[in-house]
Each structure stands twice: as C-alpha cells, then as structure tokens.
C-alpha cells in the first residue's frame, strides 16, 4: 500500500443496503467517481482514491469507521450519506480529527445549528429549506389548514417544526399532527385521523418507504381528492417507484432536478449510462461536493483541512449542481432550491419527465439571511 501522503483519500459513509439505499447508495459513489474523473484522477500530482462503507443506519458504525479511516488510511475528506442521526455522530468525529465532512443525504438542520463544527459542510438541503419551500408555496396558494403525518424521530420532528413555523407565519393553522413510528407500513389509521381533522393540506413529514406508503394509503382512502398532499421530503427515486399515477399533483422541494437545463441534462446522461436511472438531487450533490473539495485543494495547493475549509467558506460554488452557492459561517451551503409539482401521466412526455417548476427560491429565501444562532461559529 502506498503511503497516505502520496494519495488523496475521499471516504463515503452511507446507507448502502437499507431503506435509503436508493437515494444515494452506489449511485452516490458513482457520482463522486465522475467528479474525480473530471479532474483527471489526480490532484497536486497525487492519485485520488475513494473508500466506501455501509453504516447500516447505525451512528456507532458511522463514527467508528470515520475514526478508523482518519487514523489509519490518511482520510482527507468524508462524504456522509443518509440519516441525520448517523451524520450528527460523524460530525463530532470530524471536529476531533479535523477532517472536512460534507453532510449530503441527511436533512437535520441541527447539523449547522446546535451540532455545527468548523469542519462540517451541510451541502444539499436541510429541513429548514424543505419547510420554507413546500409549506410556503402551498399556504400562499390557499392551503391554510394543515395536518401532519410525521416520522417519529429527530428528522421527522425537525421537519414538522420547520414547516409549522412557515405555515403559522403565513397566516395558516396546524389542526393536528400524528407521530407514526419509523417503518410503519399501514398508515390507514393515521390517515383517517387526518381526514377527520378537516384540514386542507396533508403534510407528510417523513421519507423513503414511510413517505411512499403514507401517500399510497392517502390515495386509497380518497384523501387526495379532498386534501392537498404535501411531501416535505421526496426524492425522484421515490416518485419513480410510486409511479405518476399515485404521485401526480404532489408538491415537493428539491435542490436539483435532472431536467432543469443543458448542464443538468448532460450530467444526468452520463450518470444514466452507468446507473440506468436518473440521479437524485443528493447524487448530483455528491458529484458537486467532490468536485468543489478537489478544486479547493488545487486552489490552496494543499490538503490541509484548515486551508481547504477557509477557501471553501470564501469561494463561490458554480457547477451543474448550483450557481453562486456559498458556504455560510455555520457550514450550511446556501443555494437555489426549487418547489416542484409532480406531473400527471398525461403531462409527462418522456421517461423520467416527472416535475414542473412551481417556484425558484434563492438560497436566502430557502434558509434565511443569517447563520443559525444556535451554532457557536455563527457568533464570531
């Protein structure tokens, strides 16, 4: 094995086998490799290699693997996949080992709030932006009364809080909420309660198969005829597996969509050739984060974590993922977000033609003007 100093090591710790494996998973690793290929496979004359491991949605596995790579494999940068719980555990390691950590798949806004570190970059989206997107678009269209079906863990409750703030601030009202255990397959009881509440909007503060199964149930019990379903987090892989027949009309917020412009389509075409599906927003973010990290290394002429982080926090991010994005003092990458509506089967003209843009939000609209005051870095 070559000495650590002769190569640049990028790690990926993600859910590769569980419920979130379709969101990034192998596709995320592939996207990171595409970015490495685009810089020629080397940076500062050193070969770039990728390590990856399945955290199985267990915080202890994620944190210990991160520590091991930092101690023994000369890890230079880590990308974190799904699961807010695992990412919070890994951010603690980033602070101790002083390794830049790009949190991509996890949504919890606390990663750049109470749990922020000098080495964390929260890259693709967070619960605040999701709430500001979907919830404000629907409230402004007249959806004033809400009922939430919320996944009963940190991510779900943070998401519900973010959406509630937006609903209330825009003159709306939350009529009720029910916390469904993670991994519930039958949502009918919760949906019946939502129906009985008489609310106009059904807010789904969950993700993955929880989201799919709750939306499927809403269709079956006829809720989608009387209520507007609002997905607070849905990936294109979810819409693809649900089919347009079930998902049509749904509002959702996304950081990226493959069919936005020529650049996104070009990336998607390359990705599709390898993975046989269109990339999710977070897979695109894997590409972008890897590229931006390597560009920063090139710019400062070193893999020194402090120099790289300083560069990342003052440079603009411009690539196929976003334009004029920037990393705020608290570590949040502020960038454009899109409120989308899922097309009807009749509106969809070609494979994976799933979204129409309802609203383009600037990074400040999505995440506010100021860094999160609960983050210690924001006070300086």
């Amino acid at each position, binding site marked *: 094995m070559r000495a650590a100093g002769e190569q640049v090591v990028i790690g990926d710790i993600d859910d590769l086998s569980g*419920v979130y494996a*379709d969101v990034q998973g192998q596709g995320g690793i592939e996207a990171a490799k595409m970015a490495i290929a685009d810089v020629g496979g080397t940076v500062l004359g050193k070969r770039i290699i990728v390590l990856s491991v399945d955290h199985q949605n267990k915080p202890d596995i994620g944190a210990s693997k991160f520590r091991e790579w930092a101690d023994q494999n000369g890890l230079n940068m880590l990308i974190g996949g799904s699961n807010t719980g695992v990412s919070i555990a890994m951010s603690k390691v980033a602070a101790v080992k002083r390794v830049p950590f790009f949190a991509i798949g996890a949504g919890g806004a606390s990663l750049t709030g109470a749990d922020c570190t000098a080495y964390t970059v929260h890259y693709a989206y967070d619960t605040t932006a999701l709430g500001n997107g979907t919830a404000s678009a629907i409230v402004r269209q007249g959806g004033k009364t809400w009922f939430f079906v919320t996944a009963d863990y940190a991510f779900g409750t943070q998401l519900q809080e973010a959406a509630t703030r937006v609903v209330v601030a825009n003159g709306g009202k939350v009529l009720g909420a029910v916390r469904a*255990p993670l991994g*519930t397959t039958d949502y009918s*009881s919760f949906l019946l*309660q939502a129906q009985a509440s008489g609310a106009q909007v059904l807010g789904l503060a969950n993700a993955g*198969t929880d989201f799919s199964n709750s939306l499927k149930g809403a269709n079956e019990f006829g809720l989608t005829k009387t209520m507007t379903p609002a997905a607070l987090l849905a990936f294109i892989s979810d819409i693809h597996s649900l089919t347009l027949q079930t998902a049509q009309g749904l509002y959702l917020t996304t950081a990226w969509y493959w069919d936005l412009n020529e650049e996104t389509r070009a990336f998607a075409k390359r990705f599709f050739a390898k993975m046989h599906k269109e990339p999710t927003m977070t897979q695109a973010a894997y590409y972008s984060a890897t590229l931006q990290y390597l560009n920063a290394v090139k710019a400062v002429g070193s893999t020194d974590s402090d120099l790289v982080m300083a560069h990342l926090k003052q440079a603009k991010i411009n690539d196929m993922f976003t334009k004029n994005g920037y990393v705020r003092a608290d570590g949040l990458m502020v960038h454009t977000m899109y409120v989308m509506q899922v097309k009807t089967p009749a509106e969809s003209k070609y494979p994976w033609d799933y979204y129409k843009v309802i609203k383009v939000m600037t990074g400040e609209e999505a995440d506010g003007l100021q860094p999160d005051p609960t983050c210690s870095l924001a006070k300086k």
Partner: protein
Amino acid sequence: MTTLFGLPLPAILGQLMLGLVNGSFYALLSLGLAVIFGLMGVVNFAHGAFYMLGAFAAYIGLQFLGVNYWCALILAPLAVGLLGIAVERLFLRHLYQLDPLYGLLLTFGIALIAEGIMRGLFGASGKSYPVPAVLQGGFNLGFMVLPIYRAWVVLVSLTVCGMTWFLIERTGLGAMLRAATENARLVQAFGINVPLLVMSTYGAGVALAALAGVLAAPVIQVSPLMGSSLVIVVFAVVVIGGMGSIVGAIVSGLVLGLIEGLTKVVYPEASNIVVFVIMAVVLVWRPTGLFGKE
C-alpha cells in the same frame, strides 16, 4: 357527537374497522407460522421473506409476464410454495435432529439472502402494484369510507383461515398430520410417507405467507424489506395465541389488529409496541399462550 371514553364514536368505529383489516393480515401470516411450528417444530424466520417474495412474484408476473392480479392470487403462492418445498428438501430436512435453534438460524439466513437478492434486483425503495380495476373505489359506511379492496382482503383472509383450520382439525389428512407430529415413527409404520407430509406442510405454510404478500401488494409498497419488520410482530401474535395453535393464531391475529387500531387513536406512538406489551403480559400470566396446551 356521540363519544365513548372521550373519543368520537365514528373515529372509534373507523379504527376498529381498520383493525379488522390489519388483523386479518396478521391472522393469515401467523396461521402459516403456527402450522409450520405446530406440525414441524420449526421456527420459520424466513416467513417475512416469503411474504415479500409473494408480493414480488405478483409484481414480476404483472410487469413482465402479463399475469393479472386474479391469476397471481393462485400462481404466486404456488411458485413461492414450491420454493419453500425446495428449501425444506435441500436444507431444513437435515436439521430436524438438532436443536430448533438451528432451524431458526437457517431460516433467518435465508431471509437475509432473499432480501439482499431482491434489493440488488429491484432497489430498496420498492415497486408499486395497482389495485385491480374491479376492486377500486370504496363503500361509504357513514363513519368512514372503506376501500373495496380492504373489504376484499378481510373476506379472502377469513375464508382461507377457516379452510385451513377445517383441513387440519376436521379431515383425514389433518388427522394424519397431527398424528405425525405426535409420533412420527408410529405413523410411518402405518405406511404413511411422513417426510413427504412434512415437506408439503412447509410448502403450504410458505404459500400462505406468499398469499398474504399478494394481498398486501396493492396497498403497500412492494419492497425487499416489507417482511422483515412484520415478521417480528407476527411472531408475537403466534406466541400470544400459543405456539402451534391454529385457532390461537387466527383469533389473536384478529384481536391484536383491533387493539393496535385502537392504540393508534389513543396513543399513536405506542402503536408499534402494544403487541409486545401484550405478549409480555400473556407470557407472565399464561406461559403457553392463550390457546396453547399446557
């Protein structure tokens, strides 16, 4: 509005109705487990995986082979049942002499392999299966709209449960099966092919799981992990009913579905543990389960 225990009556009736629907799923799944345990002494941890394979068999049939829902109701359990027979013939058969723990480990391993293969082929987020056209829509019961499909599930499940009970408790074949459990060597001495009987029993138990999978396919996302969470609950149902008791499995499946439904109104956060709390209480009070033999 009329209320009961401080809750509106329509809400309670609605939840009870849904509890009945879920209970019939539990009953069908725990029935297969109870048959396999009662007649073979095997703790079949692969039951959830066979349920998942049943749902995928229906999906694959519809997408690639043009097999509609109605044919899938027969063909998917048949195909998965044959797979179960192969598992019994090739692996499980060699473990009967050993501690039941070995059978549990083997079937658990098979479940993990089946989930891994299906995840590799179809991805983790699963696939959508449409509700058959004839069963779309709903009945308005006044307090809720009951989708026709859910009513159909209750009907099929109760019919199949009744037929299985009748077959095992009231027919000559059932008598042979029960005799073979009590004293296999004696039954063999009467010229009955006991290994064949056991193999078919496992196949039938597995087919019941697959049937539940086909019934579930239109209402939940067909995904590789759909069985792994359910199998634990179903085990609890079987333990509460009394390991191996056919009637116990059916009755406790239905009753626990109802209790779970009510919990979702009163305290939803507890809805995924209420079954286990009841299991603990029953085990303390009656270690053999509600319908188990002392």
